[in-house]
């Protein structure tokens, strides 16, 4: 059965281990608690026309080898990061639901062996809603998965074809239903807008239909044309057209409004939840917690305390599965790139990620990364920031810094100014002596 399913082209399993936050003296990177393991399983059965992820087609049945290597790399990186407690695990990438449930179980076991995997930990699996995917859901639950993220994308069958998907909308809805049965209140649905031939009206209808059957979490993504994808070429060649910019802007606007009306709280640019069903995993990304990426092409951010490191690093695992497998076998992990994040770079990420959340960055959270310079000190004096505050796009108050409802839509227009200001304020202080006195805040 391993063989049958695993003519798998490949899925990226993204194992991300969430770190529990702890305030620390100088910077988060010193805290050795937990992080998010991200497992990348780089295989898919086919490539969707819009996809530019790291995906491959496997020629032999090497699911067993992959599993083994993922376990190995998980162990190596857990030990390297000295993470002690794991609050979330995420299986993503290509198509994790092509992997065998036993693979999931094995990986979770490895995680438990090398760190404490809390009972309440969120374990998410991305699901491609084909009948095959649906049939495995129950086994995944048994293996330890307690949250599903289902790639519905569209409820129009013709659109699914254009997107290169391998399921029908009916099959997708059935998968959602099954997932809701198994993990009620813990199912997320991914939908795409800005698709070819879509209009604001057809989008609104589609959304209504979806809202009748979905669970408590929706992720809305605007279709972006990435260089090198089939869809990009088709659009360039004029075979396919995507809606104009102001149309997609309108689609986003009314989706936000509609979801709000139905009781969903938008907590991030693209993520909406009700009944507290927000994704713990993704929220941690945006809050600047540490995370470990395992598998070909996975990304991570953690401090390699195990080898005496003191700075948080941005790490990427080798992209090609075969090469990655070789490296894992040779030295326990296949890390291709490691870049140290200095104080300023870390703050930049905290800023950019944090503002994507509707709650933004609160003062205490900022203080964990920047104990000497608060938000007001960094941003309060800039003329440009003042203008953004006055125009109502940005809010800086007792809670912290965040975008307004209207401001969120234009976040990327505001970020350059904020980054310039951050650099201006933090830059000079980088010359100061940064030895920690060890006293926690």
């Amino acid at each position, binding site marked *: 059965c391993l063989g049958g399913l695993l003519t798998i082209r490949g899925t990226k399993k993204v194992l991300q281990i969430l770190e529990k936050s702890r305030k620390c003296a100088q910077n988060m990177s010193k805290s050795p608690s937990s992080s998010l393991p991200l497992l990348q399983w780089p295989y898919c059965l086919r490539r969707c026309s819009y996809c530019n992820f*790291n995906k491959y087609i496997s020629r032999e049945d090497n699911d067993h080898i992959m599993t083994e290597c993922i376990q190995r790399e998980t162990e190596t990186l857990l030990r390297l990061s000295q993470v002690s407690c794991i609050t979330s695990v995420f299986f993503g990438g290509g198509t994790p639901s092509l992997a065998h449930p036993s693979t999931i179980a094995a990986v979770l076991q490895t995680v438990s062996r090398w760190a404490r995997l809390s009972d309440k930990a969120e374990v998410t699996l991305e699901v491609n809603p084909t009948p095959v995917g649906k049939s495995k859901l129950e086994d995944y639950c048994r293996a330890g998965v307690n949250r599903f993220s289902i790639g519905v994308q569209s409820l129009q069958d013709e659109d699914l074809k254009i997107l290169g998907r391998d399921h029908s909308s009916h099959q997708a809805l059935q998968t959602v239903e099954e997932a809701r049965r198994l993990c009620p209140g813990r199912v997320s649905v991914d939908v795409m807008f800005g698709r070819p031939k879509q209009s604001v009206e057809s989008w609104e209808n589609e959304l209504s239909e979806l809202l009748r059957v979905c669970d408590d979490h929706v992720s809305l993504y605007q279709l972006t044309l990435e260089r090198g994808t089939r869809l990009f070429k088709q659009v360039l060649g004029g075979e396919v057209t995507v809606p104009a910019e102001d149309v997609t802007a309108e689609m986003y606007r009314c989706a936000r409004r509609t979801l709000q009306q139905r009781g969903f709280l938008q907590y991030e*640019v693209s993520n909406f939840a009700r009944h507290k069903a927000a994704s713990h995993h993704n929220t941690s*990304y945006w809050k600047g917690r540490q995370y470990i990426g395992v598998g070909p092409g996975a990304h991570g951010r953690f401090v390699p305390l195990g080898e005496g490191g003191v700075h948080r690093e941005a790490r990427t695992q080798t992209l090609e599965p075969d090469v990655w497998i070789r490296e894992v076998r040779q030295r326990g992990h296949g890390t291709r790139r490691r870049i140290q994040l200095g104080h300023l770079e870390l703050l930049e*990420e905290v800023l950019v*990620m944090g503002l994507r959340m509707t709650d933004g960055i609160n003062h205490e959270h900022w203080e964990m990364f920047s104990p000497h310079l608060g938000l007001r000190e960094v941003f309060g004096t800039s003329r440009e920031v003042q203008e953004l505050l006055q125009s109502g*796009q940005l809010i800086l108050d007792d809670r912290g810094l965040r975008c307004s409802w209207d401001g969120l839509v234009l976040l990327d227009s505001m970020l350059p*100014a904020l*980054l310039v200001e951050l650099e201006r304020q933090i830059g000079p202080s980088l010359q100061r002596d940064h030895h920690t006195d060890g006293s926690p805040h």
Partner: protein
Amino acid sequence: MASTQTDTIDLSKFPVDRIRNFCIIAHIDHGKSTLADRLLEMTGAIVKTQKNKQVLDKLQVERERGITVKAQTASLIYSHQGQQYLLNLIDTPGHVDFSYEVSRSISACQGVLLIVDANQGIQAQTVANFYLAFEAQLAIIPVINKIDLKNADPERVASQIEKVFDIPCNECIRISAKLGTNVEAVLQAVVDRIPPPVASIDDPFKALVFDSNFDHYRGVVANIAVFGGRVRKGDRIVSAYLGKSYEVNELGILRPDEHPTQKLFAGQVGYMVTGMKDVKEAQIGDTLYLKEQPVETLPGFKPAKAMVFAGMFPTDQSDYPGLRSAIERLTLNDSSVTVQRDSSMALGAGWRLGFLGLLHMEVFNQRLEQEYNASVIVTAPTVPYKAVLSSPRLIKNRRGIQKNMVYIDDKRVMMKYLFPLNEIVVDFYDLLKSLSSGYASFDYENAGYQAADLIKMNILLNGQPVEELITIVHRGRAYSAGKAMCERLQDSIPRQMFEIAVQASIGSKVIARETIKAYRKNVLAKCYGGDITRKMKLLKKQAEGKKKMRLIGNVEVPKDAFINVLKRKDK
């Protein structure tokens, strides 16, 4: 081929009759610099490797653009029939803008290698440079290059040379500089056909400053051609121009890198460091002599005539001193730039600079940024008008009034027109050159002030006037000029969080308008894992770009928007 001699060369071993001073002149891309590379290799000045490409092009901007901007010098040692010769080569730029550099180099030489592409044949600069050399009465050795290429037709080009320049076909040397074919014959021709310099070692020391560089640590490094006598390290010499005296700190020849020596002799070309610190002390065309032995000064240079003008202002007034010293240093090495102080209401204190052409201006700008890290705003210059009444009135018409037409010889005609200066300040010269395939040359004189039918046109961004773009236009052309400027601005200014109205107006009347739409949505959909790194990179790049923008009202305008608008190339 001579052996590689990298150590001390005894220059006293080279009497005047075994010295040759020559330069290579040609139309752009006909292969001057490649031939220079080969000559350097063949005489051992540089080791023969694959990497020898345009060795003499030292400036970053030269390498990037593949053009020679500044003439460089190299001294080569060549063995011919048992004798050693000192050949001084001066590389020259090919672009029409830099013909001034060519005439300076020529003044230090006795002969030229005139290179012609075996396929393209004689081109505009070939002719222009030929005349420069011919008028200076130099020996001219025609060299037909690129014979290795498929379309090469050396026979045709040789007869073209004979017809146009009156030089016998059999005098043409056919080579491939790239492959090195027959280049040895060029060296022999330099020895055989170019006369040695007329200079005697027994005369009192006399040298011409034909170029200079400014070195941060040593001060001015002057390139000199010794026309008589000898000079030694430690000698006290005088500059005729200022009458000031200096001690010779350093002396040497260029191989092409500096090779210090103790002495330089008559007929030789090299460099001298005298501790001159002030930019104004080193005057191109100056004569140097020994303190106790004053001489008659050499004829100086006609100063280059500026054809293209622009205003240059620091991005911020606090950068003014930095920009001033950068311009001073750069113009020391490029005396064909005319400099005048200027000031603008919006931009503060700055300069009005004159260049030999648009390329010259662009290269100057690029060098300012690359070599001196200067951040500059370039604008249309403020051409002085005399106001008769409350509004300025000048005749301004692209159609000049023809005054005169004279035939110089059976191939050249000179036409005199009366033009308003403003019409020609930016791109008239460039356009003239391109319309005539570079053959036309152009000179002007100030004809005084005349009355005209002009109006002042404003450019507004969201109602805010942009001072730097105020132009004076002829009433009949206002609409088309205004529309064109608005369109160009629309292309140069990035979208912002609000709509931007770009308008051209005369008085309070809007005569043209373009709109830059506001962003309605600008936020990345997905931001997980690998997206983060990519997004951060993009955002940081945008943040950097932001720092270089100017704020007009609340509109962010990139620096190069101004120059894009002013380059009115209607093709």
